[in-house]
């Protein structure tokens, strides 16, 4: 029996999860964690060169290739950051070695779940994978067992479960809509079969199903007003998990939404999913932008910034059309890379200063120049200033939709500007001024952070034509 690349991106995380749960010693296991993440990434890249055939359970097309490669890449760099982060946590005694074993096993289970969600060719399987990803992150958010961590994990668990329950109800309704056309049995849940026959599905059922799916998976994307779990979960869990949550898990839930949006788009009578997504996206972006001003915790602040950017991305996909989809896809990629780079910096900063309170951190560019300027570069990028990649993608989002809906875009631009102001007010005290707090030298790995920032910077200057055509293909696919 031969194993193709699709099975590979599932098997490696699954096997290494078992291995990492059994092995003692964090130095060894954190390296193995990196190795497993790298192998998964390498196999994911090979999907571009040798495309395996889609089967009944797994599928690969232009859309999910982009998501898989992005997911596995950020998972790999995060595992590098995680190695030095965990080392520090062990030294300070915040985590016990047994916790680390659990942590690494869960990290790989999470990778498995996210990859499965991205390549599942079955709406039921996809739901199971997203549920698995939710449960593993709940466990990881609660790993410090402090009051705050427990409350955050509980809130995440309750809200996440309700979201996931709504998504399952939506999934059942899609099956109900497909059944009269495709017939009973597993076929009526397979993506590739659903897509070919969507035009004849009962439109009313599809409409209701999409509302449930939007609310359900939208909770996981972190769209307002269903976002309440997100800042807590980001702030209280280990920082590598904040990076993975913001950079990857939100994208996976978004991917599920996009697939269902494509399904609805094929049915001529069903409602257009776009306006619903545009509304939720705009509300999220605007709401999160204003919330930035009152944050006292540095990780919570960047969590709100994630809500804002997911809002922008959902807005872009909601508007639809090749250009806006292209912009949304680019913005999603840039946001994943930038936000995880920021969390890498923030993780080390919080470790050095021993606090996440913005009021207790200042003058970083003087006391820790590399980390400080890294954070400044990250915030410049995430706020959407040139020459970074997010400027490009935000500019594309705005310019590609302005002709169609100038008033909506105006709201979006206001949100972006408000967020920019909020981020820079906080950045000013964090990065500049008199250094405060501990001045301990940083034991940081800067490579993952600067690798991400370099890619974001390069994308702002020059996009390789191969990448552009690749994204254009996906954008066309999204309709």
């Amino acid at each position: 029996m031969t194993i193709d690349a699709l099975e590979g991106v599932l098997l490696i995380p699954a096997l290494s999860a078992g291995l990492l749960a059994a092995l003692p010693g964090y130095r060894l296991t954190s390296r193995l964690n990196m190795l497993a993440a790298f192998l998964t990434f390498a196999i994911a890249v090979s999907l571009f060169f040798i495309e395996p055939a889609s089967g009944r359970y797994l599928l690969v097309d232009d859309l999910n290739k982009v998501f898989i490669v992005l997911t596995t890449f950020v998972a790999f760099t995060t595992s590098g950051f995680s190695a030095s982060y965990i080392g520090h946590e062990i030294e300070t005694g915040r985590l016990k070695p047994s916790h680390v074993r659990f942590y690494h096993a869960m990290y790989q289970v999470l990778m498995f779940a996210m990859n499965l969600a991205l390549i599942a060719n079955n709406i039921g399987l996809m739901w199971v994978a997203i549920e698995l990803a939710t449960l593993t992150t709940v466990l990881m958010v609660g790993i410090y067992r402090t009051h705050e961590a427990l409350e955050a994990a509980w809130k995440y668990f309750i809200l996440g479960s309700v979201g996931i329950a709504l998504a399952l109800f939506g999934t059942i309704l899609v099956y109900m809509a497909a059944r009269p056309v495709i017939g009973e049995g597993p076929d009526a849940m397979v993506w590739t079969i659903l897509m070919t026959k969507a035009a004849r599905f009962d439109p009313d059922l599809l409409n209701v199903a999409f509302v449930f799916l939007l609310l359900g998976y939208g909770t996981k994307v972190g769209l307002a007003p269903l976002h309440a779990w997100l800042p807590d979960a980001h702030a209280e869990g280990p920082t590598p998990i904040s990076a993975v949550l913001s950079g990857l898990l939100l994208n996976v839930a978004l991917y599920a939404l996009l697939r269902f949006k494509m399904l609805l788009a094929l049915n001529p009578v069903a409602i257009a999913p776009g306006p619903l997504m545009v509304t939720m996206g705009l509300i999220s972006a605007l709401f999160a932008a204003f919330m930035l001003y009152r944050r006292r915790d540095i990780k919570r602040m960047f969590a709100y910034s994630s809500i804002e950017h997911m809002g922008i991305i959902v807005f872009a996909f909601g508007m639809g059309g090749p250009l806006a989809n292209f912009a949304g896809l680019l913005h999603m990629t840039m946001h994943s890379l930038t936000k995880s780079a920021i969390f890498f910096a923030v993780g080390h900063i919080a470790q050095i200063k021993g606090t996440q309170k913005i009021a207790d951190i200042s003058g970083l560019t003087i006391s820790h120049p590399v980390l400080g300027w890294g954070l400044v570069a990250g915030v410049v990028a995430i706020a959407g200033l040139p020459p970074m990649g997010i400027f490009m993608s935000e500019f594309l989002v705005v310019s590609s939709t302005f002709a169609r809906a100038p008033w909506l875009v105006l709201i979006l631009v206001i949100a972006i500007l408000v967020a920019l102001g909020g981020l820079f007010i906080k950045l000013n005290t964090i990065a500049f001024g008199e250094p405060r707090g501990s001045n301990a030298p940083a034991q940081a790995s800067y490579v993952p952070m600067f690798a991400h920032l370099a890619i974001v910077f390069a994308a702002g200057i020059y996009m390789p034509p191969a990448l552009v055509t690749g994204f254009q293909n996906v954008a066309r696919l999204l309709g």
Partner: protein
Amino acid sequence: MQGITFDIAHMLAGSLVLVSFIQLYQQRLSALLNIFALHAFVLAASVAWQAYVQDAPHLYITALIALVFKAIVIPLALRRIVIKLGIHREIENVFGVGLAMLLGIGLVALSMVVMLRVTSGADPLAREDLAFALSVVLLGMLMMVTRRNAVSQVVGFMSLENGLVLAATGAKGMPLVVEISIAFSVLIAFIVIGIFLFRIRERFDTVDMQAMDRFRGEQR
């Protein structure tokens, strides 16, 4: 097919909604757990009836899981936790009982209006099941919102899942994979919840969520 089989399916699904309502006004945790066991039992009966009606033997497995896990094992385990913590006497509702019931009636009316209208093409059994299932889901959510206690939030979540199982079995021919996964997810969810309850107790000596609210992320 019509006639008595339809009536029984209708009655069982309807009773599930009724039991959801009974859950809403329980003041004591131990009573709430009893009612939840009844909820799961009615679900098991309903699923078993669907298995018979649809001639789908694999649904008996789902019914068995509902009966053994949800109606017996989980209520017993939760009862032990509750007694160990000494909180089996009382629970507070955030709203009064009257308001909770009124909201519940509103939610059931909403789900009837929505589901019966959009499923006009489907067969009557599936339609009613879906409408009842959505009612149970919404009532479960209402319970999670109106209760402060972690244990009763868990019970609310599980009755919500019961509604989902009802929907899944009502959708004729839905693959077994999904049903097992539902049962599985409930199981996993329960383990997770168990760990959390244990840890919460370790830290707080209380499972009252209001006490936890004091430890919110952004205290001054």
